[in-house]
């Protein structure tokens, strides 16, 4: 129904003129990108990044991986891989109980990580597909082959130790798993970094060190929790070294990432990274200082180390997802790259 009325004086009661609502595509009216920082009144350390975007939609398609599967896969792979090295070391230096516990935990962890991978793929048959080809350009292909070699070695090491059968074969399997273990712990960093996800790709230099540090933390935590204190002295040192490596590499990575490092400080990823730091420091300190005297302290410290390592992997995972979902982290660093390139020849 019309509410306007045309009379001698012209139109009365017409709707007021108004400007068409022009959408938020391209450069938003305030010249800023879709999302802003500092929502809760916190002071922004870096000035807001200005960038254009298509209605704030992500540029990348974020990973479809489920956190529990893939971050869990990263964590369990690290626990297994570093555990095999500690198991071999324990065996060689006369620490049989620790060696056995670590071999069992490595077998359990690698089985769990394979299950997580298969769960993410959806059908067991799809894991065999992974072995159709061997592709050095695909970290997932290389990782599947690594897993196919490491898994049986870790399994044989555990089974032969527990049953006491074929001791020579057992030693060979233990050594084999120890040789492949560090690869299993480190390759998952390449798996994540070989994507366009800004928080993962740009950290590709430090991420493997974060991952192996975190793997050492997890495996020594497992040893502290599962082996008698009289055997775990090297594991307590390993926990300290692993924690130092992990925290140091994380710091370095955040410095290199610049704007993208926000994803490791804010949101779910930030919370998990903070929890990881607290748990790892507490576990390493408590486990190292008291784990030799008290079994309770060792178990608690070990549990904290394991939880800390898991938080690191989940933190890295969520930081990556967050960085892929906000176009800012794709556009701004690429713009800076273009600017730097243009400035170069001058």
């Amino acid at each position, binding site marked *: 129904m019309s509410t306007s009325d045309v009379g001698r004086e012209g139109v009365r009661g017409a709707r007021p003129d108004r400007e068409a609502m022009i959408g938020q595509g391209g450069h938003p009216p305030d010249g800023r990108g879709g999302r802003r920082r500092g929502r809760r009144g916190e002071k922004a350390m870096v000035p807001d990044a200005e960038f254009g975007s298509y209605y704030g939609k992500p*540029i990348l398609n974020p990973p479809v991986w489920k956190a529990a599967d893939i971050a869990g896969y990263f964590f369990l792979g690290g626990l297994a891989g570093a555990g095999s090295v500690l198991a071999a070391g324990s065996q060689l230096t006369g620490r049989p109980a620790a060696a056995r516990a670590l071999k069992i935990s490595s077998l359990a962890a690698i089985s769990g990580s394979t299950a997580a991978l298969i769960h993410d793929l959806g059908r067991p048959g799809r894991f065999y597909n992974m072995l159709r080809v061997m592709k050095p350009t695909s970290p997932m292909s290389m990782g599947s082959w690594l897993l196919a070699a490491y898994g049986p070695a870790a399994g044989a090491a555990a089974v032969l130790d527990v049953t006491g059968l074929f001791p020579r074969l057992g030693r060979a399997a233990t050594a084999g798993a120890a040789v492949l273990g560090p690869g299993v712990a480190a390759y998952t960093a390449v798996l994540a970094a070989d994507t366009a996800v800004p928080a993962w790709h740009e950290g590709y230099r430090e991420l493997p060190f974060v991952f192996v540090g975190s793997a050492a933390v997890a495996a020594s935590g497992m040893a502290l929790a599962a082996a008698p204190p009289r055997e775990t002295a090297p594991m307590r040192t390993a926990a300290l070294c692993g924690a130092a490596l992990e925290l140091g590499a994380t710091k370095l990575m955040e410095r290199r990432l610049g704007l993208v490092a926000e994803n490791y400080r804010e949101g779910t990823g930030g919370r998990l990274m903070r929890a990881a730091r607290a748990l790892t420091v507490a576990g390493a300190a408590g486990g190292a200082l008291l784990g030799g005297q008290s079994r309770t302290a060792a178990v608690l410290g070990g549990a904290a180390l394991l939880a800390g390592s898991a938080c690191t992997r989940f933190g890295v995972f969520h930081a990556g997802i967050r960085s892929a979902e906000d176009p800012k982290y794709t556009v701004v660093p690429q713009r800076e790259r273009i600017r730097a390139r243009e400035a170069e020849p001058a």
Partner: protein
Amino acid sequence: MGFFTDTSVCIGCKACEVACKEWNAVPEDGLEFTGMSYDNTQGLGADTWRHVAFIEQDRPVSTRPDDGTVPSADGNGGMRWLMASDVCKHCTHAACLDVCPTGSLFRTEFGTVVVQEDICNGCGYCIPACPYGVIDQRKGDGRAWKCTLCYDRLGVGMEPACAKACPTDSIQYGPLDELRERAAMRVDQLHDMGVEDARLYGHDPEDGVGGDGAFFLLLDEPEVYGLPPDPVVTTRDLPSMWRHAGAAAAALAGGLAAVFAAHGLRDHGLRGGTR
């Protein structure tokens, strides 16, 4: 062979989106009201292989509004619509193809990049690897899908369905050299007309992905269209990634060996036990 998409003549009719869906039997993926201008498909995905973007901007059509060639509203500068049909770029160095662990993605004899759906095992690795956010996982199917550049049509000498359907020839299909030549001419023409914002995107074989098999003429920065300004194929850094991972693995093995060496045998070690 490839695509040249000249967005300056796109009228946003979405014939390409529809033709693509029809020809390739791509399932429906939700009819939502997005509030994003006239865009109801939002972006490329498993079930949207061509996507028409609608950008409403508070800017005049021409950067020279006073020369009489292009009418502009008033002192405010008026507004303009940018419409652009986006598609898989069929990168010369395709990250999706590089990282696929099953070899499901392959390069065709036309230089395009195609997924074989019977081999894809749904690992989802190609999805975050694509620097353009093109390939995606189909819900309930688990496998990855994207534009095939109508591989089946090319095989029998036909042009892709989208190019065939485009009423303004905004989408052109042909040998890349020829398309690049035509594109360069069109940019000059637009510059002469005062449209100084016209630029090509993805045409340069020296860029981070070795040039795109599908390139574009844009009227604004790429990010305004939801395109990355400086995409790089992620596997360019892969050798360095493997080196860093190798160093990290060696550090782990070496570090732990050193720890055990420092502690020595349990029976003889100084700090071997506290009992």
